[in-house]
């Protein structure tokens, strides 16, 4: 395997983006920021890969317009996944591993506020047996949270502790759209939203875009003082049907963690759009109490669809760049109730 590192990362998040669902207006300045960080220009990028969803944009081929953000000619070596851009990063990492290219720019975008997100995501379910009932995302997560409480895997206090820590950390994150910690007692006194979930247990609906630059070997050392070298990256999927799996567990997360080699990471950025899902992920990834989880505030502070997973990898890479950690992981999830999971482990080298 070639040595590949994260060397650039830029993001934008907001509650409501006053622009097109293709987010080209966000992507152009994000690419400019990535060029500035790495010293690369458009011509230095060997491969482009994006992640987004037509259903979020409410039109077919939404990613086609986003290609405009790259610039016109000459043509580029480019691909797209209908998934969180963390999986686009996986495809780009793969492309670099084949030896075909040395650098890649990965981007994701999504305007969740264009529709009613929790209803839109109901279309991800089985079209024959589940979608006709329109179980929305928050309700499905509520079922999962209740299953964990009933099984004794967690309680409402543990969920409130996750939310309080995340929203407190988010105060230091300029990209957070929800921030402001309080106390566990005060959070528990707030009203129910989708029993047993309170508003702060659920990620805020967020619009946004982000990009990451990958490069290999010497190209990475040229682009960054302290590249975040990817030591392992893997993803797995579980069955979708809520009745055919134990909702208190996420075998695909555990499998991805084992395949990527979690080891002794100091920082973990976990893509947990609901507070109890962080508790599931910590268990499945074997993260001990000493691991600093979501110093960015995580998805409870901002959850731009199809970008939030990529952001976790970018945030984890930044801890390597600034020298505050030597081994970190970024995690991404997709599908209802932690169905699909990706883990990317990175390290700094002196």
């Amino acid at each position: 395997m070639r040595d590949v590192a994260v060397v650039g990362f830029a993001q934008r998040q907001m509650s409501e983006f006053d622009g097109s669902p293709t987010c080209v207006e966000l992507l152009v300045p994000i690419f400019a920021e990535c060029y500035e960080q790495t010293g690369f220009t458009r011509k230095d990028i060997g491969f482009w890969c994006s992640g987004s969803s037509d259903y979020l944009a409410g039109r077919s081929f939404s990613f086609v317009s986003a290609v405009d953000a790259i610039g016109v000619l000459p043509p580029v070596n480019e691909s797209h996944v209908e998934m969180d851009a963390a999986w686009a990063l996986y495809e780009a990492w793969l492309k670099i591993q084949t030896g075909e290219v040395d650098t890649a720019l990965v981007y994701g975008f999504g305007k969740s506020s264009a529709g009613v997100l929790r209803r839109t995501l109901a279309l991800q379910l089985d079209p024959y047996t589940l979608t006709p009932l329109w179980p929305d995302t928050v309700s499905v997560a509520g079922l999962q949270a209740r299953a964990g409480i009933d099984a004794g895997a967690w309680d409402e206090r543990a969920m409130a502790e996750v939310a309080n820590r995340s929203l407190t950390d988010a105060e230091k994150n300029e990209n957070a759209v929800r921030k402001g910690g309080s106390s566990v007692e005060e959070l528990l006194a707030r009203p129910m939203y989708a029993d047993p979930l309170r508003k702060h247990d659920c990620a805020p609906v967020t619009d946004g875009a982000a990009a990451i630059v990958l490069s290999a070997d010497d190209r990475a050392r040229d682009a960054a003082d302290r590249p975040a070298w990817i030591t392992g990256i893997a993803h797995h999927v579980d069955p979708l049907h809520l009745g055919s799996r134990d909702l208190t567990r996420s075998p695909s997360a555990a499998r991805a963690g084992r395949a990527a080699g979690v080891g002794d990471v100091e920082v973990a950025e976990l893509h947990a759009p609901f507070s109890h899902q962080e508790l599931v992920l910590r268990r499945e990834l074997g993260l001990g109490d000493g691991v600093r989880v979501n110093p960015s505030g995580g998805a409870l502070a901002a959850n731009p669809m199809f970008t939030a997973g990529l952001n976790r990898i970018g945030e984890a890479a930044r801890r390597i760049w600034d020298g505050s950690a030597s081994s970190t992981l970024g995690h991404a999830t997709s599908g209802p109730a932690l169905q699909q999971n990706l883990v990317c482990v990175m390290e700094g080298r002196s």
Partner: protein
Amino acid sequence: MGKLPAAVVGVGQTHHRAKREDVSIAGLCREAIDRALQDANMTFDDIDAIVVGKAPDLFEGVMMPELYLAEALGAAGKPLLRVHTAGSVGGSTAIVAASLVQAGVHERVLTVAFEKQSESNAMWALSVPMPFIMPVHAGAGGYFAPHVRSYIRRSGAPSHIGAVVAAKDRQNALRNPYAHLRNETTTVESVLASQMLWDPIRYDETCPSSDGACALVIASEDSARSVDSPAWIHGTVMRSEPTTAAERDQVNPQAGREAAAALWKQAGITDPLREIDAAEIYVPFSWFEPMWLENLGFTPEGEGWKLTESGGTAMDGVLPVNCSGGVLSSNPIGASGMLRFAEAALQVRGQAGEHQVDGVRRALGHAYGGGSQFFAMWVLGDQPPAN
């Protein structure tokens, strides 16, 4: 580091029809997958990862259907990727699957592409009006007709060339048991007599809207050597350019020309017309055969129609094109590109049945999408790649 050798060792496809009401979306995919696994003499247990491709989710009304399909595709507990690159997606999906093997990450990868277009209306799913974005106007034909008119003007091609392509591909389809359209009476004259839809594109010069799927098993060198006649991957390429720019030439797009040049170089091919023995080219509207012959470098610019008119692209021609009947005879959009890639594999393996060309050593699979802006191609050979 170079790419590790990889080969297609299993090919499967569905019977393509306007409405496959006998199967669910999962059932449609399984029909192709089960045939591909059987062809490869494998089961799901042998598969390391699954790569799914399809065109817009609005075509079936399911958001990211691979999530619901995970179990049916044998993906539960494995890595699952979902590619979407517009009409070229079937080709891009096969290329992503190939790269999992070529990078040394996996040994045996299953890839499937599908579209169940009868679940909705593809033409109108493509025509949602969006602020500040040029409308497609009643489906792809309305978008591409001006490009065809421009091609005819620039090349001076006689007006019946499109009908020659349509009649050839429909006759070829009669030799392919999986093809959707089976119109035995189609001739150049009958095509020219069919109704004008988007001038100069007539009804019989357009692709159908199909339900269908295609699956491939791609394996590493070790796994491929144990099967009969693997189709070795000699080159893969993807290129894209934006939709709207004054300097774009949509008749002969730069992305297609550069993709072809890179592909021939990878495959060690200097004279594609002589060295490629069979080609499966993405031709959704008949005139795109001569247009892509030029874009791919099989002929000089302005002369593609001469090769078509001379019969050079017929089954017994110098370059047999779309012996399967092509997109003009079966078009489950998301799968159409992979079908081109798969038919190239069948030709190289000598398994194309009645539409087999004799002695194919190297074959081209080609797909394009969007506004002639996304290209995916591969070259397969009957021997392992030399480089």
